[in-house]
């Protein structure tokens, strides 16, 4: 039985639970509230105010501990005291403690661009440059009494618990605006991982669907076809009344294409309503058991505290059980159909999913802005255009445009390179070495971009600064059968160079949990810059895709009878 209480103006939920007492303090702030230029600030604060780190999610940040009532009271009161007086001298130490890498998921960026939920796909570039003032301002806005909730799994509130937080206002749910012009959509991820996500109405039917989908994927892809090593799904309820469902499948070695095909078919079968009532019954039964078990451990409390912050009703166990038990196969089929239509598929490798009826998510800009044109040095295909509205980078028919009024962030290197990231996640990179008189463009960008969008990057090694390609390396214009290979090779090398490790980072982001290894350091920020942008290396990615398609076409068409 959950009791509603209040501690120092913070709404609280208390319920008895098995085992030692545990409790948590949650704030309605997460990565979806951040912007790219302050990406990581919430997690920095999380590490700054508690020795035992809590957890920062898309919409919530919480501090959680287990122990005696006295220990719990001391811990949570300590967090509040530190939030009221953030120990500025400890920022550097907190930063040190958080070097471990968190997995980043690229799908939100493709769906939302460089805003709201999409921000979570970006690296924490700003971390080293965040100032005391920024930290203080962020706490003032988000870590307040009005924006917090407490849960306690125990018979009573711990004695001596004081939540002395600054006053503030309750923050609404982040507004999620998609940048996908059409769904279902696809984008190319790294080889070896297929992923899919969707956003549907948040309810028990959606949660059951997520589990049904997981079971199907495991059965079809792993056990039956043997194309995937693992498959799992996640159900992430959101404060705005929607839920995100994510499915991930790790391909068995060399079987990425089968993993994609299997995923496509499983999604189609569920959309078609091929859902067995027994299967739903089994999932409902497991879910109900899970809920009962969670109730005993006090594990339903965090979710209910999140509900409080979202202005939603606190749900009793019986209510939750009733809601789950009421889910029918038809309900699950309805979620499957709605989810299918809103789906976003990450294909393993560049093959795409047009054949399965998915629309390619935009990988570049449609328009080239007006302005002064700077030609590429030694590469006539390359153009940089600087105008009053923004920057366009053009190579052949590949266009990256970032308008100043829709710019999410600018990365600035001491050598003059600037990377503009649009709110739609498309990037335009100004590399002064590659264009004629590009210093003028760097000046334009610095004039137009407000300081709050600028992220200062550490100096680059000399070999990280791109040089114009010698004319000899530029592929001949005429088409001969060797050309795709040559292009692929050059593009491939350029991919390694320009987007060093970018695709690898994506795989690891998806597959690895937090590690101690310091993945960021290992790959170099250059790779991270590229990995976090839709336009994966405007000078390389697209060419590689085209050349690969061309090769495949040539391979496939030597003799093809249709027996």
């Amino acid at each position: 039985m959950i009791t509603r209480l209040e501690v120092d103006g913070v709404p609280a939920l208390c319920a008895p639970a098995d085992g030692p007492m545990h409790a948590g303090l949650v704030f309605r702030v997460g990565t979806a509230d951040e912007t790219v230029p302050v990406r990581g600030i919430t997690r920095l604060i999380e590490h700054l105010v508690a020795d035992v780190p809590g957890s920062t999610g898309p919409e919530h940040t919480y501090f959680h501990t287990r122990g005696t009532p006295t220990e719990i009271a001391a811990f949570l009161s300590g967090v509040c005291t530190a939030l009221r007086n953030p120990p500025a001298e400890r920022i550097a130490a907190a930063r040190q403690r958080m070097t471990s890498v968190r997995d980043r998921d690229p799908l939100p960026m493709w769906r939302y661009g460089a805003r709201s939920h999409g921000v979570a796909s970006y690296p924490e570039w700003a971390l080293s440059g965040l100032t005391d003032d920024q930290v203080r301002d962020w706490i003032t806005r988000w870590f307040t009494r009005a924006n917090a909730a407490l849960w306690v799994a125990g018979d009573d509130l711990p004695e001596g618990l004081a939540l002395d937080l600054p006053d503030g206002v309750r923050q609404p749910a982040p507004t999620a605006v998609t940048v996908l012009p059409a769904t279902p959509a696809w984008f190319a991820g790294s080889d070896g991982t297929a992923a899919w996500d969707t956003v549907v109405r948040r309810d028990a039917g959606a949660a059951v669907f997520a589990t049904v989908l997981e079971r199907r994927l495991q059965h079809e892809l792993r056990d039956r076809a043997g194309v995937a090593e693992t498959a799992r799904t996640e159900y992430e309820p959101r404060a705005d009344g929607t839920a995100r469902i994510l499915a991930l499948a790790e391909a068995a070695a060399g079987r990425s294409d089968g993993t994609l095909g299997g995923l496509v078919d499983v999604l189609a079968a569920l959309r078609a309503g091929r859902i067995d009532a027994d299967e739903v019954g089994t999932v409902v039964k497991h879910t109900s058991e899970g809920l009962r078990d969670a109730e005993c451990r006090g594990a339903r409390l965090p979710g209910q505290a999140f509900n409080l912050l979202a202005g939603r009703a606190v749900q009793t166990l019986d209510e939750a059980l009733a809601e789950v038990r009421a889910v029918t196969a038809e309900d699950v089929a309805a979620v499957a159909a709605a989810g299918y239509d809103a789906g976003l598929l990450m294909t393993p490798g560049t093959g795409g999913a047009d054949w399965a009826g998915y629309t390619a998510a935009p990988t570049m800009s449609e328009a080239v802005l007006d302005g002064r044109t700077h030609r590429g040095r030694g590469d006539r295909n390359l153009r940089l255009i600087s105008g009053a509205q923004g920057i366009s980078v053009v190579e052949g028919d590949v266009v990256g445009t970032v308008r100043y009024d829709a710019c999410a962030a600018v990365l600035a290197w001491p050598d003059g390179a600037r990377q503009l990231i649009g709110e739609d996640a498309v990037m335009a990179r100004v590399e002064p070495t590659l264009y004629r008189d590009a210093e003028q463009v760097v000046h334009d960008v610095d004039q137009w971009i407000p300081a709050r969008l600028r992220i200062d990057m550490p100096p680059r090694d000399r070999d990280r600064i791109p040089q114009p390609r010698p004319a000899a390396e530029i592929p001949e214009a005429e088409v001969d059968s060797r050309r795709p290979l040559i292009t692929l090779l050059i593009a491939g090398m350029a991919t390694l160079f320009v987007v060093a490790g970018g695709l690898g980072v994506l795989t690891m982001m998806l597959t690895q949990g937090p590690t101690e290894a310091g993945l960021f350091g290992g790959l170099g920020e250059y790779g991270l810059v590229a990995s976090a942008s839709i336009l994966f290396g405007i000078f390389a990615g697209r060419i590689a895709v085209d050349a690969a398609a061309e090769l495949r076409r040539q391979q496939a068409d030597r003799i093809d009878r249709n027996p």
Partner: protein
Amino acid sequence: MLPAMSTETDVVFDIAAAYPDMVPLRAALVARDWPGCRAVLDAAGPMERTGLLRLLGEEPGIEGFLRGVLSEDPTDGSASALLGLHLIHIGWEIRTGARAQYVSREQFRRFREWLCRAEQVLIDGAAFNPADPAIWTARLLSARGLGVGLAETRRRYDRMIAADADHLPGQIQLLQSLCPKWVGTWELLHEFAREAVAAAPPGGAHGVLVVDAHLEHGLEEIGPEQSVAHGLIVYLSQEAVRAEIYQAAQRSIGHPDFARGQGWIRALSGFAFCFTLLGDHRAAAAAFRQLNGLGTEYPWEWLGDPETEFRKARDWALGGAK
């Protein structure tokens, strides 16, 4: 044993002529009588049904009709398979069977467009009918045209086999995909052909898989100065190859249980071709007699005009048998 045919008999390459069900089926489709089509299809065995659907898919102008059928009942597996096969057929007609250098970029674009349309019909068809071997056979064709990859091709094949073991129409498709020119290797190709023939019940047309595999391999081994016929003779005359062909024939067209089931003409035509090139009068004559005037363009088309080549070989075989 059938009587020896006189050499004046016309060669009939219309496979439909060998399958009596095609006549009422085609008539029902032309009359846009779907229950009539279903009556014939539902009465056929799984392999025969796939074979009939494949042939029927070549009828022009049936897309709108079939989409109508599917909008009435999206779960109709026969309609899904037929529409899918029809759209694939249109795509391949645009692309043509020519070598790549004679196919324009625009032809490839439209080819892919039709195959994508087919695939989407078939994805839904498979969603509603996961155990329909005709749909999985069609998806093996689309898989090859779309270049979806070996693991996905295998996954589709496994689904088909789970629905109907030894489903020859789909096995012929996988065999094609296992050629190195698509997504396979010679090792994969021969291993598959051997295993499929060994697993199939004796007396089936499945022996043709070994013929297909060797002819595909033989074609690739033709030297720059060799004619197709000469190159194939050299390849087929290798002791191991020859032995495998005869072993497959024994289990297939030469088996007492060999009957006029799905693929029987293709099997006889393929073996007759091999025996002719190997100079085996007796075996070739037996195959031609069983064909009884019927034939397939495959594999005679590789030597020149299929009808001329077929007739020439038959005259040689039956004449020699006299």
